[in-house]
């Protein structure tokens, strides 16, 4: 290339230098500095990963699911690796709401990051009680109502597979809680749109999806199922296309924000979910392999916003405000599909 040409300022680079990126999102009234959260059940109560990286950089923290009374969880084995995936049958092992408040909350409430507590119950009444109890906590950002756990005898997924009972649980929590309510949905349903619409009409402030996909494994040496509960929940990159499809569907079915999760491992995955309609994303299993995956995704999103075509189109149209906003690309793939030409 001609040396003179190199010394000329590149208009695009000049533009990039001048523009700011805004990753902020607001979901269910929770202000997050970026859209990257950690998924419930993959992050404990934050203590373990706080020793490994700066968890204050996360958009939000979602705790392991808690129940009214302590639970021991399922007997081992609880894990089985599958191609690009992980089956788990942990079974909601948790210290119960009172011990959570006593032992985990004092540390969690000091985090400068919104903390969302995932709650589960066997009965509508249990969901109601736990929601009421947690609403007394000062500084808690929101409740995530787990109506999708596949690894327990009662409750969990049973509530999330029928629009009527999904409505009932979310309604009860909404009435009992003074906090924003996020409904965590199961992929193990015929119509995610019906479930999403039901929880929206029950007053949910957002939906999060997907929980794990029901699967199983057989032990060929012992010639019996690997897990005592036979079925287990599949997560990891293997479920990503399923999760993405359901986020796309949920985005079309409801007006409340959609939080997307399921196999997100890289910033590219996160961008796909956001374009498909997710206002925020959560990283789960990927954090087991690379604990810093959520941070790498935050950095990647920032670079993507600067470098992608959004930037180019902004370049053509932008006026005074040179801030590129992540929230402007939420669901953009829907618009581009409708307006675009696929022939």
């Amino acid at each position: 290339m001609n040396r003179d040409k190199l010394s000329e300022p590149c208009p695009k680079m000049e533009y990039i230098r001048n523009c700011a990126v805004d990753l902020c999102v607001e979901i269910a009234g929770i202000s997050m500095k970026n859209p990257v959260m950690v998924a419930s059940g993959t992050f404990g109560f934050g203590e373990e990963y706080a020793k490994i990286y700066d968890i204050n950089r996360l958009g939000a923290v979602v705790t392991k699911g808690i129940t009214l009374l302590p639970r021991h969880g399922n007997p081992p084995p609880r894990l089985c690796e599958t191609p690009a995936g992980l089956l788990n049958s942990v079974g909601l092992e948790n210290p119960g709401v009172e011990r959570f408040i006593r032992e985990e909350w004092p540390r969690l409430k000091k985090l400068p990051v919104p903390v969302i507590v995932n709650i589960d119950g066997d009965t509508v009444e249990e969901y109601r009680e736990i929601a009421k109890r947690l609403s007394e906590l000062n500084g808690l950002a929101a409740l995530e109502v787990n109506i999708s756990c596949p690894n327990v005898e009662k409750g969990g997924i049973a509530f999330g597979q029928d629009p009527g009972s999904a409505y009932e649980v979310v309604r009860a929590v909404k009435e009992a809680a003074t906090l924003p309510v996020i409904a965590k949905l199961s992929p193990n349903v015929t119509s995610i749109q019906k479930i999403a619409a039901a929880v929206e009409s029950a007053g949910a402030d957002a939906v999060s999806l997907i929980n794990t996909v029901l699967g199983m494994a057989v032990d060929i040496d012992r010639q019996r199922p690997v897990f005592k509960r036979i079925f287990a929940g599949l997560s990891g990159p293997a479920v990503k296309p399923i999760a993405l499809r359901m986020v796309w569907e949920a985005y079309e079915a409801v007006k409340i924000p959609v939080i997307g999760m399921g196999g997100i491992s890289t910033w590219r995955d996160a961008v796909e979910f956001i374009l498909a309609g997710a206002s925020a994303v959560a990283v789960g299993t990927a954090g087991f392999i690379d604990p810093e995956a959520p941070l790498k995704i935050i950095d990647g999103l920032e670079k993507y916003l600067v470098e992608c075509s959004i930037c180019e189109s902004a370049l053509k149209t932008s006026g005074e405000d040179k801030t590129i906003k992540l929230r402007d690309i939420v669901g953009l793939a829907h618009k581009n599909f409708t307006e675009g030409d696929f022939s």
Partner: protein
Amino acid sequence: MERKGDILAGLLFSTKVIQNVLIAYDIYHMKICCPEVAEKAAPGQFLHIRCSDGPTPLLRRPISIAGANEKDGTVEMVYRVLGEGTRLISQKKAGEILDVMGPLGRGFPVPLDAVDPVLIGGGVGVAPLLYLAQKIAGPLSRSGRSGAAFIGFSTAGEVFGVDFLKSCGFTVFLTTDDGTAGQKGVPTEAFENCIKGHEVQKQFDIVYACGPKPFLAKVKDAAVRGKIPAYLSLEERMACGVGACLGCAVKSAGEGYKKVCRDGPVFEAGEIQL
């Protein structure tokens, strides 16, 4: 590898492989350069190793530390190729990069007083005992005490660690299932015969063991009968390795489950049900 802040004092490292050689049937000896781990590691702790850059095999593999040298910053592991993950680790060549997390877990308590220790290992379970032997070799010779190691393998081709344990001052009792090396039998029986005085009567103050669960259950029974405190290192499949996913559960002696990665992998025998 530099990391910022004290919370990042270091659990994630991109290390260089120095050596990775086959030392017995399906058993590899790997040496990596990681001064941070070499400095902090305790016997019984493990490293969580990434075996692939892609999504399959997905999870890291927990591998116990078999040796560490603070002076040259090296860390050693002895591992068995069991599946695709460990097969990929075995293909790493000197000079290549290995992504490790650690040192993780609770290790063996190293005795401060003069004691006569006994090590009992089955198969690749001998690996963490090598590091323990390295750590207690000095105190052992200074205090004039003696240690014994009962180690067992299925066949002669799988034997490793005998010379190393001897060099650390341990009397080694070797067994193989098929009798092709040492005595025919299993190390738990050899140990029990020893404390019962069937062959050479010997009393021990503390038991350290690592191997499969049924093997550890036998060690525990023998230690309880001999009224000797015992520390058992468990092998378990793991996902996160740090206590977040609750996947590697073992039944607690009390209620509920302990997590092998965080509460172990070394447990006092009375803490768990095998």
